[in-house]
């Protein structure tokens, strides 16, 4: 299981991906910041919808050479 600090979430409206290792510096969210610790009034920096429109990003199968 991935740790919260490495778990990405995706905005189901616009497709923006929240990465805890990147944060959202324009909104004052500095990394590392797990999605679950984001303030409740945090909004998607791309389309403005709330946290409840985000879902866990399921990583695809790992491809190896």
């Amino acid at each position, binding site marked *: 299981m991935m740790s919260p600090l490495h778990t990405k979430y995706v905005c189901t409206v*616009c497709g923006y991906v929240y990465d805890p290792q990147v944060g959202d510096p324009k909104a004052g969210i500095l990394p590392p910041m797990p999605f679950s610790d984001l303030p409740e009034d945090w909004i998607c920096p791309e*389309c*403005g*919808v709330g946290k409840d429109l985000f879902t866990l990003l399921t990583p695809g199968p790992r491809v190896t050479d």
Partner: protein
Amino acid sequence: MSKPPPAAKQEGGRRMRCISAKVFDIDLTKGSIQEKQLPKEYWQLHLGGSGVAARLLYDEGTYAVDPLGPENILVFMNGLFTGTPVPCGCKMAVCAKSPLTGIWGEATVGGYFGAELRKTGYEGFLVRGKAQRPSYLLIENGQVSIREAEDLLGLDTYKTSELLKDRHGEKYEVAAIGPSGEKLVLLAGIMFGGSETRAAGRTGLGAVMGSKNLKAVVIRGTNPVDLFDRPGLVQSIQETVPVIKANTKGLTDFGTAGGVMAVEANGDLSIRNWSLGSWTEGAAKTNGQKIAETVFVSHYGCFACPIRCGKNVRVPVGPFKGQLAHGPEYETTDGFGANLLNEDLDVIVAANDLCNRYGLDTISTSGVIGWAMECYENGLITKEETGGIEITWGNGEAILKLTELIGKREGFGEFLGQGVKRAAEKLGGLAVEFAVHTKGLEYAFHDPRAFTSMAANYATANRGACHLEGLTYFAEQGAFPLSLVDFEKEFTRHGHENKAEIAVIMQNFMEAMNNLGLCKFLIRGKDSTSPAIFAQWIHQVTGIPYSKAELMKAGERNFNLKRLFNGKIGITRKDDALPPRLGVHDKESGAAKGSIPSMGKILWDYYRIRGWTPEGIPGKKNCGSWGFRKALGSSITPEGGERNDVPVAHEIRLHRVWLCL
């Protein structure tokens, strides 16, 4: 008897959530700000946006006023879904009596301003009167103040927005007019979002704002949005969004301008002021795909938008070369491209940027330039009169210069800035034949000869030649299945059979979408975004059970209400017409070759379906069925056809003397 929905029962039946029904009533003459509580029933009857605005302006009687006088009222109003998580619920309406057309004026706009307004806890605001000094409004939740704007005068919309965000904070949203609005240019719109421009462009509402000495509105809200059934709505959105995305990939990749080549292939493009039928090579050089290859910088989307059709670009030529700007939309790309026989994409991008900076409507601006080029070609306008500018077809330098002059209301630009109808009437003769407008509004760039249901729509649209009031070319091409609005009859693109019915149904549906605050591209979601789904979302947002039939009825009600507003000004069948270029002349090539809409037949059908008199006046019986009196004891009556209690619409007291050639 069926059980009431559990959610409605829990709410005691009819308490409306999300919608506060509160507005600010701001009088700039008096410097007064009042909070008004409107009846919540307005949102059940009219859904919000321009529907509620029409109700307010009809009751205020602003059909009788001088559009540029202090008695005109400028209304900013959110749609019912604006600022909620409903996908594409980003649009708000700006409405007033139009100074360009002298009739009902409205423009809708996306971006983030409406979402911010939702978070203030207010549905909108009315601006009346005229400030003694240049001013701007600052709205912060429930607080409104009128601020000094002397230092903003003359600034373009980007600079105005930047300066106000520096002053108040990055999270504030700004709506502003540019120099054209300040100088009462009749083609002026109101621009939102600075360089990531979204425009309330049409019908000259920037001039109304300028006439009130109002340079900008700055807004910030921090209140949560109260939804009746948030989990249910979120689940529905998550089911819907993948379908919308799958059906709008072209818009995501290339923006609305990505459609230029397809539109040309359909014979739907305006070429050389609507006089030519095909322009295949030119269309291949001036489109969204070429923008993506050349000047594209990044994608942009409005609030809660899964499509993200906006494109940020770097301006390649002109006075703002090298700067970031919003890329041209489809309408602008045709207007400054094919419409002017201009194959230079760089010029289109720069002209779009100039319009956004000066605060001009790109459709009307490029439309009037196309008209002027045809007049110049025919010797009706001379080089002396243009101030030495050779306004020949495809002359990029002239296009940029004329756009700038219109924006500044200087030189020959002052003449063009009054719009094609007034300018043509001043020149007379052939110039009137070349003028492409209905009710004084320049045509959007979809040809009614290509999809003849658009002829019914353009002729009857309440704000003049507007494509969005019906959007029937979407439906005729199958981009929106007409079965979703219960239309199953046969039709052909160029014939007249059943076209009036398509126009009526789509106008009612598009009106409802407009009032809800939805972007029209949402209908690309096909059966995942039908009227039935929108009705379900109304329930999930407000707690008020709503049906597909009620939704369509609300659209019909609002469309007719605007017609009644126009009826008070004397609008009848005589005004429901195509211009000669589109109604008499056919094209000699392309997919719409030989097509002329049968307007007599189409309009006869249209009035019959609408329940209007043969003169185009809403009937008394229908007025009852729209529910005005029954529900609210309204003052609204179908007396539009009575010869006016208002002076003739076009006797507008212009505040400056126009240049007469």
